[in-house]
Each structure stands twice: as C-alpha cells, then as structure tokens.
C-alpha cells in the first residue's frame, strides 16, 4: 500500500511487518516520551542525580552519541574533501546515523537542563570562555549541516523527487555538498573537541583535568581524534547490523574495508596519543595536585583499574590492530568484533570522563559517591535509541540510502549469491532495537 513511496529497484518487507516494527519501537519511544514529559513538568527531581552527580547517565549518553555520530563528519571529510570516491556508497548512511545521534544529543540537552525554557540563554547570553558554550554552538550549527546533508536524501524519495523544485534543490545541494561537508568538519572538530574540553578544563577535578595548548586541554584533541576514529566504526557496525537484519548485502566489501582500514589507523594513532596523555597525567599532572593516579581507581570495583586497561588495550589497541591488518580486516567476524570493541571503547571513555569524574572525591575528607539512574533517566536515554530505530526504519524503507543495494540485490533474476545472503538475515535480533528492525527483515529476501 506504500509501494509508491518505496525506491525503484529495491524490495521491502510487507507493510504489516513494517508497521509492527514501528509499533514496537514506537512503544519504547512512547515510554521515553512519558519520562521526558515527567522530567519537563515535574523537574529533574525525577532523576537520581544529586548535587555531587550533577552530570549523569544522560550526559554520558549525550557524549557517547556525539562520538558515535562522528562517523558522519569524518566520512564526509574523507569523501568530499579528500575525495575518496568509494565512500559515496556509505556516506548516506553515515549522514543518517549522524543525524540521529546529533538530534538525540540536542534533545537530551534540552531535557537535561533545569530550565528548558531558558535554554536559549546559552546562545544569547553566551560566555565564550565556557567549553559548553562552544559545544552548544557548534553542535547546533553542525546539526544544521547534518540536516542539509540529510535533506537531499529525503528529497530523493520517489514521490518527492517528482516535484521539480525538490529535485533541483536536491541536485544543487549534492553539487555544493563539499562546502557543507567542509563546514561540518570544521564545526565537528570544535564541538567534539570542546566536549573533551568540558572535562579537561575542570582544574578543580584532578581526575578530569589535563594540561594542554593555550586554552585547549589535551582531552580537546583526544575527543576529536577518538570521534573520528570510532565514529566510522559505529557507522560500519550499524551497516553490518542492518545487513544482517534485512538479510541483504547493502554496501560492497571494498567500501567497508576501506573505511575500516582508515578507522584502524585512526584508532591506533589515537590510542598512542591517549597512552601518552594518560602517562603524563598520571605521572606529572595528578601528582602535582597531590594525587597518586591509583587513588582514582581505588574505591570500588566499578571504577577499578580494569576500566583504564579495557579502554586502552581491549577497546583501543586490539580493534586498531584488527582493522589495520589485512587478514583480520577482511575476515567479517574479526572485523565486526573490532568494530564492536571500538564502539564500546569510545562509549567507555565518555563514561569515565563524565561519571567517574563525578565519583572521585577531591577534598581529602569528602567521600566517593555512587549513583544509579532512575527509570525516568533510563527511559529518556532509550528514547533516542527508539527514535533512531524508527528513523532508520522509515529512511531505509522509503529513501535510496544504499546506492549499491539494487546492484547487489537485483529483484530478478534470482541468483544463488543473493539467496545465500538473505538467509543470513535470520540470525539477527537479540537487542530490543534490533528486534524491532528484525520484524521487517524477511521481506528483503
């Protein structure tokens, strides 16, 4: 019944399956919306945050989303500025994922602040010395860029494209995309960095504080670098997930491997920088403030030294090497493991830079604090996930996101290769988000 909207040359699942998937994701979304409204109307007392844990789950989710959405700017940079043509086959999806991550991040910020109706003060009454101001400006501007990058894709919908104006607009935007991509990269550099700066400039918090260049602490550069390194991992990982769920090959291996290789080198270089930073911090910065680095990992198992090891070795060096070495990179299983480790690694890094910063006491007579989120916080954090699933469901169904899809999955004639890939789709679906998409899967076959 919605066949008129489905792109030419591809096949989609029956409407009922699509609607069912939407309904399931929608239910999670609704739960999140209820929590969001409770927070807006009743205030932040709906959360388990407190005066010590002023930043908590949301802010972590916010930082993680932005880091993971970093695939959009970095892939865009590679595609449009460095002119790596192959990446055009994955850039659409990178943009979509980025769009979801950034819109979610903005929504979370709007929920997180105590006075949402005064949110615009951050722009109007901006204190330019605050890293958060930089975040807010660059985030909003870059979100505008992402809208601009996403818009032509929307306009390529079969029906919309029929309108000449939209068709032309879409075309023109594609033509000028390099300019937007460059601006986006510029903005991303600053907001990814300033998110790192948010923690790094806290000279009252020795666990977070880093020295740096001029006003920019080392975390500024590390955050940008890590977003560029791990963002593509997330894009590739979601692409893989989508392929598994739809049971179709959507992006050619050479494209995936190319991006994976770049990500691998980025990760390795990042980890080297991170290790240098950590060593300097642990041996120079923190001791100068009276702290032995082990103190920061001393109170409870949740914030033990394992966290540093996991972040740097298991989720840094390991995925980096797996992606750099050809054989492991080309092995789909090893590649996916590397991608997943990368995604976890950057999320863990953001977790540490937000949650652990809050947990560590600074005054010698203060106490370690632990915090667990309220259901409202969990629901509000899942809201963007559900929203992302829905947007992917709709976009995948109605927009020509994967340029190589028709070629890789010709509707007819049937080829054994396609059939084999299709059956692989049945395996997907243990997370709730994938489950929702999973409903739509068999239709691809």
């Amino acid at each position, binding site marked *: 019944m919605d066949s008129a909207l489905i792109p030419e040359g591809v096949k989609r699942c029956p409407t009922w399956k699509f609607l069912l998937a939407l309904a399931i994701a929608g239910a999670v979304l609704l739960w999140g919306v209820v929590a969001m409204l409770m927070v807006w109307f009743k205030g932040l007392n709906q959360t388990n945050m407190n005066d010590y844990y002023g930043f908590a789950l949301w802010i972590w989710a916010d930082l993680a989303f932005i880091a993971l959405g970093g695939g959009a700017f970095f892939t865009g940079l590679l595609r449009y500025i460095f002119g790596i043509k192959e990446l055009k086959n994955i850039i659409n999806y990178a943009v979509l994922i980025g769009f979801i991550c950034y819109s979610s991040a903005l929504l979370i910020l709007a929920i997180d602040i105590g006075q949402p109706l005064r949110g615009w003060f951050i*722009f*109007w*009454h*901006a*204190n*330019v*010395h605050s890293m958060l*101001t*930089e975040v807010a*400006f660059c985030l909003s*501007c870059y979100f*505008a*860029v992402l809208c*601009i990058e996403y818009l032509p894709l929307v306009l390529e919908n079969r029906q919309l494209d029929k309108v*000449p*104006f939209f*068709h*032309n*607009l879409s*075309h*023109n*935007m594609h*033509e*000028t995309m390099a*300019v*937007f991509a460059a*601006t986006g990269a*510029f*903005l991303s550099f*600053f907001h990814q960095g300033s998110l790192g700066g948010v923690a790094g400039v806290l000279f009252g918090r020795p666990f977070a504080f880093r020295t740096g260049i001029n006003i920019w602490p080392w975390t500024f550069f590390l955050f940008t670098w890590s977003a560029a390194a791990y963002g593509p991992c997330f894009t590739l990982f979601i692409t893989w997930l989508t392929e598994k769920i739809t049971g179709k090959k959507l992006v050619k291996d050479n494209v995936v491997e190319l991006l994976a290789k770049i990500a691998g080198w980025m990760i390795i270089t990042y980890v080297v920088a991170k290790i240098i930073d950590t060593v300097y911090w642990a041996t120079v910065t923190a001791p100068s403030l009276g702290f032995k680095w082990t103190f920061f990992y001393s109170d409870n198992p949740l914030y033990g030294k394992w966290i540093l090891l996991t972040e740097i070795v298991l989720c840094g060096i390991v995925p980096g090497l797996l992606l750099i070495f050809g054989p492991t990179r080309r092995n789909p299983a090893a590649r996916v493991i590397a991608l997943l480790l990368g995604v976890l690694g950057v999320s863990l890094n953001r977790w540490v830079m937000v949650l652990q910063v809050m947990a560590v006491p600074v005054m010698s007579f203060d106490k370690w604090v632990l915090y667990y989120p309220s259901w409202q916080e969990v629901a509000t954090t899942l809201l963007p996930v559900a929203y992302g699933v829905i947007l992917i469901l709709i976009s995948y169904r109605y927009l020509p996101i994967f340029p190589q899809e028709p070629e890789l999955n010709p509707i007819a004639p049937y080829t054994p290769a396609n059939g084999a890939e299709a059956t692989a789709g049945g395996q997907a679906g243990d997370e709730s988000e994938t489950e929702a998409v999973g409903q739509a899967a068999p239709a691809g076959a």
Partner: protein
Amino acid sequence: MFPFCFEWVWDMGHLVFHGGLWYALSIIGMGMTYCIIKAVIDTRRGGSSHH
C-alpha cells in the same frame, strides 16, 4: 551572541569565537541560499535541465 547583547565584549575571545561561528553560519546560510535560488531558477527554466 550579538554585539548588542549584554555579555558581548570586544576582545580576542569573542572575536575568535564569534568570528568562527558567524563564518560557519554564513557559509551554511549562503550555501543554502545559493542552492535554493539555483533550484528556483532551474525549476523556472523547466525541470531537470542539468541532465
């Protein structure tokens, strides 16, 4: 955000920050304006002339 805002100061920090900001914003703005105007003109000229 604007020079007439209470918080505005004519100093290096503001010039660099807002310089960068407005530079980026104007690129985005001009880019979009260009695309829209060109799309209008293209449409007036009759459909998908670029093909």
